[in-house]
């Protein structure tokens, strides 16, 4: 064995002993308990962090849905139903005779007595009055 090889072996032997005494002084059981406790605290704090935003998200969602509901209801009340809007547009292009025809069609669904008395009155109405009447019927 050369001097160089002997020195290599001695170096590895010394390296193998490094830190042995410090490691022996380590209380392994205490370390294991401390690590587990810290991991437990880690999991608790993770859960807390997760649960808190979950509630906040759920509450925000409810507030959002209620808000959207209020806005939509308000708009519907303000402008009428979409169907009503379309009916109004269609009535704009009709003549007096056509409007009377539409009213006549609507009358099929009404009470007979009402129709009879109403039929007499339709003939006296102007185009604008007929249109206004139909619009009020459509709501």
């Amino acid at each position: 064995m050369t001097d160089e090889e002997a020195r290599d072996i001695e170096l590895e032997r010394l390296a193998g002993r490094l830190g042995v005494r410090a490691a022996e002084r380590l209380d392994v059981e205490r370390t294991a308990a401390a690590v587990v406790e810290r991991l437990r605290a880690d999991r608790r704090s993770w859960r807390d962090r997760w649960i808190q935003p979950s509630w906040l998200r759920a509450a925000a969602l409810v507030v959002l849905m209620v808000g959207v509901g209020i806005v939509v209801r308000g708009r519907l009340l303000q402008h009428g139903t979409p169907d009503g809007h379309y009916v109004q547009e269609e009535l704009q292009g009709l003549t007096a005779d056509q409007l009377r025809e539409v009213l006549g069609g609507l009358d099929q669904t009404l009470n007979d007595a009402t129709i009879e008395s109403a039929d007499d009155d339709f003939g006296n109405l102007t185009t604008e009055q007929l249109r206004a009447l139909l619009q009020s019927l459509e709501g």
Partner: protein
Amino acid sequence: MPPADPAVQPAEDAELIAAWLAGEERAAAELVRRHARALARFLAGAGAPEADLDDLVQDTFIRAFRAMEGFRNQCQFRTWLLTIGGNALKDLGRRLVRHRIVPLDEGVESRDGNPHERAEAGETEDRLRRGIERLPRMQREVFLLRAQQGVEYDEIAVALRTTPGAARVHYHHAVKRLKEWLK
């Protein structure tokens, strides 16, 4: 001789890791029991102050358990743990420099003040420890993994994200420097 009863065989690290990931705390405690002393030796050999050794071992395990889902058995759990310990030690060195305004080498060097134990450790061992602390980090970790922990170059390479050839070169340079310092 009858085969050993599988029921009494100690669980493999991989089984303990899987159990920990499934939420079993006892598996974590068992992994600490298995590897804490080897980790403490590695950290002390790399220059961890003895007063901080216990905290450093705990911090290393906490980091490892937090990162466990990323561990894919690419190397032994212990080798992976030791490299995490190397990172924890480096961070400690930075903190010591920042808060105590001392040079990094001085900050991470052992502060074990017991003169009797220092004498017992022997002058050569003390010089070796100081020499290891002065090595560049890669050389220091490769040297300790190989010479102190007996890890193969292939595994060192995987753990330190280098090649086995590069790991050999780092080891060779470390040995050369240490022998010069020990002359």
